[in-house]
C-alpha cells in the first residue's frame, strides 16, 4: 500500500440508493433526450432496437461492471483515479502514466460539455421569460442560437455576454456541488435531480400523449405518426453495418463509460459492497430515461406539429437541431408552451449538470488523494483551471474549436480509454482475478459465460467501433476537410491544447508519485 499512514479516511456514499442515483445521474445526460431519438429515427426505427439491445448486453453492461470493478478495486488502495488504479492492476512503472489518460479525457471533456449544459439553463430561462417568442421559423431559431453563442451579432444578442453569464452560473453550480463532497454534494444533487428528471420527463410524455392532432386541417401530423416515425421497424436497414455501429455508439455514449467517472464513483464503495446489482440498477434507470422518456418526447411532438417531412430534415440535422431549433418552435405553438419549454430545458440542464459533476470528480479526487490537498483548495484550483481552459471553447466556437475537441476526446479518446481498461483489467490483471473482483460481495450471481463475453466480445466491439469511426471520420478530421482556411489556426490551437493537457496530466502524475516516494521514505512502516 502506498497510502500515507496519517491520511484521512476516504469519503463514502451515504446510502446505496444514493450511489445508484449518482451513478444513474452520471449516465443520464443530454444524449438520452436528444441523441437517442435522432439515432433511432435515422437508423431503422424499431429495428434499431435489435442492435441497440444486443450492444447493451454485450458491450454496455459488461463494460459497466468492468469500470465498477476497477473503481472499487482502486478504492481499496486509496485511489479514486485511474493512475493509481492502473498502477495496482498492471504493476508496471508505465501503468500510472497510461492512467493519466483517465484524467486528461475528463478535463478536456468538461471544458466544452459544461458550456453546452449552460445553454440548456439559458434556454430554460428564455422559455420562461418568452425571450424567443416571436421567432417564427427554423432559420430564425438558428439565428437566435448563433447570436446567443456569439457566432453572429443581431437584435437577439448583440454580444456573447448572455452565454458567458450562463456559463459562469453553471460553472459555479458545478464547483459548488463538488466542493461539498461526495455524500453532501454529489449524492444530494443526484437524490434531488434524478426524481426531478423523471417527474419532468413523465409530465412531458403525458402532455405529448394527449396532443392528438394539434391541427385538424393536417390529420397526418399527429402523435401516433410521431411514435410511428421513431418505432415503425425497417428491417432492410439492418443489413447496413453503419446501423449496428450507430447502435453500439449510442450504447457507449449513453452509459457514460470511458472517462473515469464511474471508476471514481465506485472507488467510494466499501471493499465488500456489491457492484453487480447496483450496476444493473444504474443501467436500467438510464435505459428508462433514454428509451421510455427520451423516445417519447422530442420526435413525436415535432411530427405532431411540423409533419413527417420536416421532422426527417430535423433528425438528419442531428440532436442539436432537434433540441435548440425544433423544440423552442414547438413550445411557441403549444398551449402552456412557456411552462413546458421551461421544464424541458431544465430537465436537460439537470441531466447535463449531474453528468458535468461526474466528469469533473476524477480531477477532484486526483488532487485530493495524490497531492493531499483539502477539498476546498482542490475545488478552487480545479474550478479556476477548468474555467480558463473553457475560454477558448466559448470564444472560438464559430471557428470549430469545440467540434475538434469533441471528435478527438468525446469520440476517439473515450473509446481508446475503454479499450485500455478492458485490456488491463481482463487480460493483464487476469480474467480470473477480474471475475473474482467483480463478484466480490455481489448481490446477484452471474453466469460464467459473462467473463468470455468481457474478454473477447466486449473488446472486439470496442475495437471495431474505434476502427469504424477512424475510417469514417478520422482521416477527414485529421486533414481538416471542409474546414475554412481562416479556421486552421484555431484547429491547430485545439490540437495543441489536447497534447498540452495530456502532457500536463502525465507530468502531474509523475510529481504525485515522486512526492509519495519521498513520504514513504520519511515515514517508517
Amino acid at each position, binding site marked *: 500500500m502506498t497510502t500515507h499512514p496519517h491520511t484521512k479516511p476516504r469519503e463514502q456514499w451515504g446510502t446505496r440508493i444514493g450511489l445508484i442515483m449518482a451513478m444513474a445521474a452520471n449516465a443520464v445526460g443530454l444524449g438520452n433526450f436528444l441523441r437517442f431519438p435522432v439515432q433511432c429515427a435515422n437508423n431503422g*426505427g424499431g*429495428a434499431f432496437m435489435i442492435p441497440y439491445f444486443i450492444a447493451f448486453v454485450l458491450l454496455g453492461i459488461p463494460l459497466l461492471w468492468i469500470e465498477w470493478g476497477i473503481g472499487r478495486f482502486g478504492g481499496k488502495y486509496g485511489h479514486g483515479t485511474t493512475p493509481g488504479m492502473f498502477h495496482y492492476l498492471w504493476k508496471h512503472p508505465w501503468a500510472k502514466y497510461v492512467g493519466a489518460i483517465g484524467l486528461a479525457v475528463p478535463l478536456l471533456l468538461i471544458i466544452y460539455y459544461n458550456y453546452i449544459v449552460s445553454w440548456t439553463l439559458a434556454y430554460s430561462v428564455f422559455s420562461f421569460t418568452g425571450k424567443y417568442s416571436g421567432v417564427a421559423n427554423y432559420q430564425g431559431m438558428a439565428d437566435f442560437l448563433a447570436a446567443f453563442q456569439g457566432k453572429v451579432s443581431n437584435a437577439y444578442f448583440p454580444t456573447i455576454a448572455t452565454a458567458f453569464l450562463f456559463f459562469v452560473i453553471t460553472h459555479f453550480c458545478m464547483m459548488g456541488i463538488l466542493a461539498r463532497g461526495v455524500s453532501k454534494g454529489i449524492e444530494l444533487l443526484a437524490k434531488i435531480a434524478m426524481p426531478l428528471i423523471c417527474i419532468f420527463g413523465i409530465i412531458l410524455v403525458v402532455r405529448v400523449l394527449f396532443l392528438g392532432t394539434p391541427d385538424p386541417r393536417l390529420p397526418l401530423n399527429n402523435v*401516433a*405518426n410521431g*411514435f*410511428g416515425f421513431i418505432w415503425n421497424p425497417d428491417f432492410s436497414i439492418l443489413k447496413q453495418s453503419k446501423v449496428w455501429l450507430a447502435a453500439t455508439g449510442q450504447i457507449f455514449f449513453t452509459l457514460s463509460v470511458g472517462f473515469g467517472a464511474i471508476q471514481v464513483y465506485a472507488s467510494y464503495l466499501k471493499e465488500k459492497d456489491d457492484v453487480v446489482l447496483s450496476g444493473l440498477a444504474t443501467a436500467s434507470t438510464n435505459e428508462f430515461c433514454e*428509451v421510455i422518456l427520451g423516445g417519447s418526447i422530442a420526435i413525436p411532438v415535432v411530427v405532431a406539429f411540423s409533419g413527417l417531412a420536416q421532422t426527417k430534415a430535423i433528425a438528419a440535422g442531428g440532436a442539436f437541431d432537434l433540441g435548440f431549433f425544433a423544440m423552442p418552435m414547438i413550445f411557441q405553438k403549444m398551449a402552456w408552451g412557456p411552462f413546458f419549454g421551461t421544464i424541458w430545458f431544465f430537465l436537460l440542464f439537470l441531466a447535463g449538470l449531474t453528468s458535468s459533476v461526474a466528469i469533473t470528480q476524477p480531477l477532484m479526487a486526483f488532487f485530493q488523494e495524490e497531492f493531499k490537498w483539502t477539498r476546498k483548495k482542490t475545488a478552487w484550483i480545479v474550478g479556476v483551471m477548468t474555467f480558463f481552459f473553457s475560454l477558448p471553447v466559448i470564444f472560438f466556437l464559430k471557428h470549430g474549436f469545440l467540434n475538434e475537441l469533441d471528435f478527438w476526446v468525446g469520440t476517439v479518446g473515450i473509446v481508446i480509454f475503454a479499450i485500455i481498461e478492458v485490456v488491463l483489467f481482463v487480460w493483464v490483471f487476469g480474467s480470473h482475478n477480474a471475475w473474482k473482483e467483480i463478484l466480490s460481495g455481489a448481490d446477484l450471481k452471474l453466469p460464467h459465460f459473462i467473463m468470455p463475453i468481457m474478454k473477447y466480445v466486449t473488446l472486439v466491439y470496442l475495437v471495431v467501433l474505434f476502427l469504424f469511426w477512424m475510417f469514417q471520420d478520422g482521416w477527414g478530421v485529421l486533414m481538416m476537410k471542409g474546414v475554412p482556411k481562416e479556421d486552421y489556426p484555431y484547429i491547430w490551437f485545439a490540437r495543441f491544447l489536447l497534447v498540452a493537457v495530456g502532457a500536463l496530466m502525465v507530468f502531474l502524475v509523475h510529481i504525485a508519485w515522486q512526492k509519495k516516494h519521498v513520504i514513504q521514505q520519511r515515514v517508517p512502516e
Partner: protein
Amino acid sequence: MKLSGWIFLISSWLFIIAVMFFSYLRVLRKK
C-alpha cells in the same frame, strides 16, 4: 403507427421496466 411499431415499442418498454423492477426489488431486499 404500424402494428410492428407497437410491438417494438411495447416489448422494449417491458424489457426495460422488467430489468428495472427486478434490480430495484433486489436492491431494496438486500438493503
